[in-house]
């Protein structure tokens, strides 16, 4: 099993999907437990990966490579390095926990869990795939279950949210397909192998004169391809101005799906940029990511924070806070410093755990009160003290309070940003203040103040809900104190990535 560990992690949930489909339709508990069992082995293997990952090796590990369609040089090629390991761990963890967060689904249970497991396979596949074709297949495989999960099990405006998500992402991915083909046809011999394409990245022209996209291998060509890939990924991040699908999708999606969406799917955007744009088109990256990506990230931080401040719906607030926090990732990536890029990838991981908690917490209160109006609550701390305690951890982590994980990654990003663009660093740091503003204000309105008589008898958070939250809370605290638990995994690969781009920075 350890030889093909990544394949097992990817396809075990799919095997679980087949089992779930064969189970009788009305045995809800069988279906739920079967799904939990299908996501457990990937989690165990993730722990094993964590223990056995060679931290000093910047290259790929646990590689599997088989020919798939030899005539077109398409391979089944998977492997991980420091860029993807943290995302693989996060995916395994969140998928497992979200099965338990989905326990309350009582409509079309079989379909829900089957689609969820298919989604799990798609997500894991995206992070481990190293063949461009395989990457694209997994990227798209993820779309379909997401469409149905939002569209069937979502809130009142689910149809609109689902199709909007689908159309936005499809546009991005078809653009990406064109870019993939363009890269394929400039490689020699034609290949979809990412490592091979990276090795050939030096062949693109460096003259800044010919901005003519139809000139193969020229300067213009690689910039146009870079932008096409970037737009595909930016829609996923979601970077301004492609972010508008996110609040809709988040608000309408069921709790567990929101967690997956924010915790894993958004990371695919930034992961894709790091995995593909940076090493494959280093010169274009140096021209376009420097300043542009940093400024876009800063704008995301501030814009997202202001939007979050204006929200009346608790879930929409968390959704906009994701837009804001993903801004730190972009800002950190754009600095090309050790601190910045490590901070960015750590922020991807931390945002996954923290926002996962936030959405789970919103789900807890929504299940009880059946609404999410921030103004509609008050004094919950007195009614549900345990719940409030967990919420406080998540909120403070999201705010960047020292001692919790969010702080470390944001500080690293800002440290990196200070070395390259001081103005953006100051603006980005002001985002922390804005975040504190909207989160503290929310705590005040929802948890403190006079008790709302309507909700006096709300039951306390139950064991199953705590079970989904506590592991994430523990990780948040551990990484706040000892961030090297994750940073060690990332460093060598990310430093190598930086070195590819830095020579091209003018």
């Amino acid at each position: 099993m350890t030889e093909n560990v990544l394949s097992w992690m990817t396809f075990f949930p799919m095997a679980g999907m087949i089992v779930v489909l064969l189970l009788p339709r009305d045995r809800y508990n069988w279906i739920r437990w079967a799904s939990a069992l299908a996501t457990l082995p990937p989690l165990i293997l993730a722990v094993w990966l964590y223990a056995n990952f060679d931290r000093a090796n910047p290259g790929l590990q646990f590689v599997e490579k088989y020919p798939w369609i030899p005539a077109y040089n398409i391979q089944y090629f998977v492997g991980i390095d420091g860029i993807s390991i943290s995302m693989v761990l996060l995916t395994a963890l969140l998928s497992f926990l979200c099965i338990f967060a989905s326990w309350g689904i009582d409509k079309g249970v079989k379909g829900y869990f089957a689609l969820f497991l298919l989604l799990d396979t798609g997500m894991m596949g995206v992070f481990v795939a190293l063949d461009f074709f395989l990457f694209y297949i997994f990227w798209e495989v993820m779309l379909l279950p997401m469409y149905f999960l939002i569209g069937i099990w979502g809130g009142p405006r689910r149809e609109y949210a689902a199709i909007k998500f689908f159309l936005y992402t499809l546009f991005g991915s078809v653009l990406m397909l064109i870019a993939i083909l363009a890269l394929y046809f400039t490689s020699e011999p034609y290949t979809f192998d990412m490592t091979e394409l990276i090795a050939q990245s030096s062949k693109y022209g460096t003259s800044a004169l010919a901005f003519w996209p139809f000139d193969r291998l020229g300067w213009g060509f690689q910039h146009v391809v870079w932008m096409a890939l970037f737009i595909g990924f930016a829609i996923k991040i979601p970077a301004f101005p492609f972010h508008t699908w996110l609040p809709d999708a988040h608000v309408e999606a069921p709790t567990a799906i929101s967690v997956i969406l924010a915790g894993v799917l958004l990371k695919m955007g930034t992961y894709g940029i790091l995995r593909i744009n940076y090493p494959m088109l280093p010169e274009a990256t140096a021209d376009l990511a420097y300043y542009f990506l940093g400024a876009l990230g800063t704008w995301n931080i501030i814009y997202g924070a202001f939007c979050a401040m204006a929200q009346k719906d608790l879930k929409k607030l968390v959704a906009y806070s994701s837009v804001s926090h993903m801004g730190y990732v972009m800002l950190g990536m754009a600095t090309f410093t050790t601190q910045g890029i490590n901070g960015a990838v750590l922020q991807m991981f931390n945002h996954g755990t923290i926002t996962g908690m936030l959405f789970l917490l919103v789900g807890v209160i929504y299940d009880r009160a059946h609404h999410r109006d921030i103004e509609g609550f008050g004094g919950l701390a007195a009614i549900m003290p345990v719940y409030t305690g967990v919420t406080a951890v998540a909120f403070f982590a999201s705010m960047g309070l020292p001692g919790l994980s969010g702080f470390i990654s944001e500080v690293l990003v800002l440290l990196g940003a200070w070395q390259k663009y001081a103005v953006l660093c100051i603006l980005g740091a002001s985002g922390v203040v804005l975040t504190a503003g909207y989160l503290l204000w929310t705590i005040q309105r929802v948890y403190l103040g006079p008790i709302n008589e309507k909700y006096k008898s709300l039951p306390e958070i139950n064991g199953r809900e705590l079970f989904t939250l506590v592991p994430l809370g523990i990780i948040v605290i551990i990484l706040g104190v000892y961030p090297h638990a994750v940073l060690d995994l990332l460093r060598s690969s990310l430093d190598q990535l930086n070195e590819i781009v830095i020579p091209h920075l003018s």
Partner: protein
Amino acid sequence: MDLGNLESLKFFYPEAILSGTILLIILLDLVLRSKKGLALLAIAGSLLSLWATFDLYGTTPGYLFHRMIILDNFSLFFKVVSLLAALLVVWMSLGCREIREIQQGEYYTILLTSALGMFFMASSSNLLMAYLSLELVSITSYILTGFLPHNRRSTEAALKYLIYGGVASGTMIYGMSWVFGMTGTLDYAGISTALFQGQPNRLSLFMAFVFILAGFGYKIVFVPFHMWSPDVYQGAPTPVTAFLSVGSNAAGTAILMRFFFPAVSRLADGGDWLFISGVEWPHFLLIVSMVTMTLGNLCALNQQNLKRLLAYSGIAHAGYILMGLVVLNNDGLKAVLFYVVVYLIMNLGAFLVVVMVANETGKEEIGAYRGLAWRGAAIPAVCMAIFLFSLTGLPPLAGFIGKFFLFAAVIKEGFYLLAVVAIINTVISLYYYAGIVKTMFLDFPEPTDQPVAMTANNSLLLGVLSALTVLFGLYWGPLVQYTNQSLRFFIK
């Protein structure tokens, strides 16, 4: 190889078997009570002919019947496609209520005759033969379209089809007469020699090509010769619509490729085709391709009748297929052949679900699909979703691979504008395909919506088609090898 009439018969047995089957059905129709036997006979005949076609692979390519038709891999490929279309449509007709109410003997006879016409369309090497085969397919299609007695829509559709078809083939034969006037021959090889060695007047040659494209384009359904298709698709019995959408389209593609590639272009090194310089028909087709896909998709957005929607979607797909032709490269042509097979599978699948729903509800409107997944028809609904997403071009389904090869050919030859137009169209098409999926899954049924039951026959066909759609999305190696081998034109 250039054979006379009698020697040719040795290589003519797929056609002979099909003709024999047709005659046998006519005879047995007079005798047999149960008409189901006729359908089974039609299936058996097509299977036998299919076997015979595969048997011919590997023989020396050459001319048959004094250079009237060609035997080569390309023609064999399209024979296989036409037979598969006929076979699957007969199978589909077995489980279709509409068909059970009509004269089945004649129906199967004409259906197979149409398939026979497609054989000749794919293999004709002479303008006269091309015209005759095209007319054979057209006339049988008119009859099939108007097959529903006392149904005004069906009759209206047949009349419209007839009028448009008459105009289109008239235009085409006028164009052919120009070519004959300029070259003095109807034979493709002769035309090729005359055009490349002589000094044809470019403008008049271009006009002749545009006229000829009218006839071919009316079969493939590209703009501006598409006007008949929505009405005909909606009015015709659903299996006939399915047959027209895949069969005629494929045969039209075949005849177009045969004339415009080996006959009036030259193969250069690296798989590129050179057209007669100054006669800019590829650019004309390029514009037609972009307009066709855009118009098809935009018109499909607001359709309420599913057959009409699939008609517009078929127009859009004709545009995609043209993408592979305008790049003037063997990669593009191979992509077209692959797409033809994939489109056959997924489009027939979509029409099969239309048949299943119409059997129970008698309706073809999107409203009839409301909450289909929750009305005891979860499997047809899931299969329909597979076919529709495959038509959109989402992995891991066959339609994606088809589109992938088309895009690949377009990008390789540097037609970036075309690629961008095609991307935008893919996104537009997702909207209406997903709209149907939304109706089936996201909407819940009203109490008035009847449950949709499945018959064993239909479920089996549905299973085969959806399994193939997924299979060719995951492992298409053998299929692409077959289609690549099929791109062998014989000309001398």
